């Protein structure tokens, strides 16, 4: 069972370079999320998507762009990488959270990104 797959797992970039992180899920989830995890900050939501063709900003969207062209894929882009974007990035997917929701978010294994 693949679940949520993130590529790449590791990447080192120079300041100003661009790159795209790919997230793929095979659970037919409507919702997908991108988080970053930093020491002492916990998980912070960057962007999320409630369905194919839709995206929305989370808590820390600046410097990132996303696209959801297919239901199973959610891409996170850094147009001009900055050292402050050094972090571990997690993708997750789920059914919509509702008061009767009983499905948790499923996470990928993360992408460790270093910006020099």
């Amino acid at each position, binding site marked *: 069972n693949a679940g949520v797959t993130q590529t790449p797992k590791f990447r080192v970039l120079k300041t100003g370079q661009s790159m795209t992180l790919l997230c793929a899920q095979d659970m037919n989830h409507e919702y997908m999320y991108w988080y970053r995890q930093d020491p002492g900050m916990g998980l912070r939501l960057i962007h999320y998507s409630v369905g194919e063709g839709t995206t929305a900003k989370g808590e820390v969207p600046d410097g990132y762009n996303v696209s959801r062209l297919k239901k199973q894929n959610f891409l996170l882009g850094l147009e001009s990488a900055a050292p402050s974007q050094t972090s571990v990035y997690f993708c997750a997917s789920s059914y919509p*959270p509702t008061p009767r929701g009983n499905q948790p978010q499923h996470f990928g294994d993360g992408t460790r990104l270093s910006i020099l």
Partner: protein
Amino acid sequence: SQELEQSPQSLIVQEGKNLTINCTSSKTLYGLYWYKQKYGEGLIFLMMLQKGGEEKSHEKITAKLDEKKQQSSLHITASQPSHAGIYLCGAVVNSGGSNYKLTFGKGTLLTVNP
């Protein structure tokens, strides 16, 4: 402000000891999830609680959602080194009107010394 507060932030226990981690919200929780994360790895779903007073167990880990649905506790009995890691709570809270969102605590780092 952090909507979900976890305590303690870190915890060091001797193998075999019991421990409790708390997750507290100022808002009603409509679903409470506990995750475990090992260093360098992703988040692993442990269990989910929805009803006030609900309690679930998996091996030596027990989680409970209080009656008012604003606090959850995670209890580990007879801790082992394999229990070490970061425990995060995630919860569905009302974000206004009929909108709901999932939010996470900052995590509790558990170290179990053999």
